[in-house]
């Protein structure tokens, strides 16, 4: 991972002449504080998961992962992500299209509304669906009369996850499409291209990396969401447990090795997310500098 290039950290900070940089000693103290802090808050937790899961041998590790309850939790988690991410992507694209390609009043208000789920505690995100669709509510009772279970079942888990991950993709696309403006699309429209064609041929190539970026963030959160899902899942082993919930159950049953083994799966997904994320950042950075070069020579 250390070799991956991202655009985030500036490079060549040391090229700054002494009058606009800190004395060497201050610099090394700040670097040391940063490294110690990051290690004790972020890096060591990562390492301890791998350590604890492998402490009692690789055999026990594999056993805890292939065990049927773990597998069904994995399956459920994947199902939730597979439903949530495309739906939120479609929403994100629609919202970004309407917001960035057209002028209307109340636009900023709409953007703030999209942000709302960021401000809501995960537990409350679950609670609202119990209030809306639980057996005590009118709507829940109505569904129940048709024998459709929503809360403590897959639909409830998906809904809660959709709520929590709702803003991710739209938030990524809106600034991107705003910066790109509408000239290219207008040019295509004046040539008679249809809406779909404009989107696929003109807009999509410009936003594909941003979209992917939003999707992997959304995916990571969908897989890892704990609080909201915990409220609506009902914790039925082998049925309504996602991977994070399964980790909780194992941990509370003092099956630490198994809990950390299942966690290690989630750690790998997280690491993969970060790798893809920094790859995308590197890619878009490259594209930007290419564009700048074109500007210079053109």
């Amino acid at each position, binding site marked *: 991972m250390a070799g991956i290039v991202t655009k985030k950290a500036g490079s060549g900070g040391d090229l700054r002449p002494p009058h606009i940089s800190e004395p060497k000693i201050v610099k090394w103290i700040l670097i040391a504080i940063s490294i110690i802090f990051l290690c004790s808050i972020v890096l060591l937790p990562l390492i301890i998961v791998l350590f604890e899961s492998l402490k009692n041998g690789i055999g026990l590790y594999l056993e805890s992962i292939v065990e049927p309850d773990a597998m069904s939790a994995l399956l459920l988690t994947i199902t939730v992500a597979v439903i949530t991410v495309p739906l939120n992507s479609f929403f994100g694209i629609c919202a970004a299209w309407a917001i960035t390609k057209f002028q209307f009043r109340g636009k900023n208000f709409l953007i703030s509304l999209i942000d709302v789920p960021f401000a809501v505690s995960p537990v409350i995100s679950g609670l609202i669906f119990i209030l809306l669709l639980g057996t005590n509510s009118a709507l829940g009772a109505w569904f129940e009369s048709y024998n459709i279970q929503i809360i403590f079942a897959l639909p409830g888990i998906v809904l809660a996850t959709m709520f929590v991950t709702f803003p991710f993709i739209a938030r990524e696309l809106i600034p991107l499409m705003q910066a790109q403006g509408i000239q290219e699309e207008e040019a295509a*429209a004046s040539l008679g291209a249809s809406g779909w064609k404009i989107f696929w041929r003109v807009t999509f190539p410009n936003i594909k990396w941003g979209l992917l970026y939003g999707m992997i963030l959304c995916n990571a959160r969908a897989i890892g969401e704990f609080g909201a899902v915990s409220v609506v899942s009902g914790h039925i082993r082998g049925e309504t447990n996602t991977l994070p919930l399964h980790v909780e159950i194992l941990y509370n049953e003092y099956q630490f090795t198994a809990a950390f083994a299942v966690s290690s799966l989630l750690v790998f997904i997280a690491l993969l997310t970060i790798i893809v994320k920094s790859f995308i950042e590197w890619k878009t950075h490259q594209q930007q500098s290419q564009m700048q070069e074109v500007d210079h020579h053109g």
Partner: protein
Amino acid sequence: MFFFGKRNVLPGFRRTFGFTVLYLSLIVLIPLSGVVWNTLGMSWLDFWETVTSDRVIASFKVSFLCALVAAFLNLVFGFIVAWALERYSFWGKRFFDNLIDLPFALPTAVAGIALTALYAPNGWIGRFFEPFDIQIAYTQIGITIALMFIGLPFVVRTVQPIIQELDKEVEEAAVILGASRLRTFFRVIFPQLIPALLTGFALAFARGVGEYGSVVFISGNMPFKTEIAPLLIMTKLEQYDYAGATAIALVMLIISFAILLLINIIQAKSNKTSL
């Protein structure tokens, strides 16, 4: 509420706008308004009694105090980290830079059990504090550490781009006017970072107040001591006390939105002074 401006040659406004509003309403607005609707069903007295009961007040205190301390520590250390990453080059810098995103990507439950293992009295770090009779896991210190993990990227990722965009010439202007590095930093650089720092602080705080997954494992969940407000909502739900849960939720929602509003105000203000 929405007024449509001048016509545009691009197609698809009605469909995309319509779907956006529909989806937003179904997934976010209608469910969320349920909280208000349900509390309206309560009498004011019931509501007041619920949210001012000793245990609820204690849980709010724990949640807010820990979130506040965690956000403050993140402000200090997150700033140092962001500064080091932006201004210095050192071995492993790229690695650490990517590591900042881990709390965004790692499921909170995993973070929770990992931090607990690390800071428990016999854990890798906890054992160094044990001899001094300092317990970290299962105390408010533990909660604070979990919230620091969760909130760190908010501070770092908000401040980092601002440090990157700082105008080198403004620093040079201060230097030419005779200012030492220390003065340049405190009088010229730092004031420019304040809006970003405040925003990062508020974001980390807002996230910390509502956080559940990473905290429940390390907190020990002792009522009046280490029980956080989201956990109390959970407990009330398990006891089918929906009204109680909803009342606490409403208070938390109001506070969250107030913070969100504050962040927007800070941002708007700092955008105004940019040249």
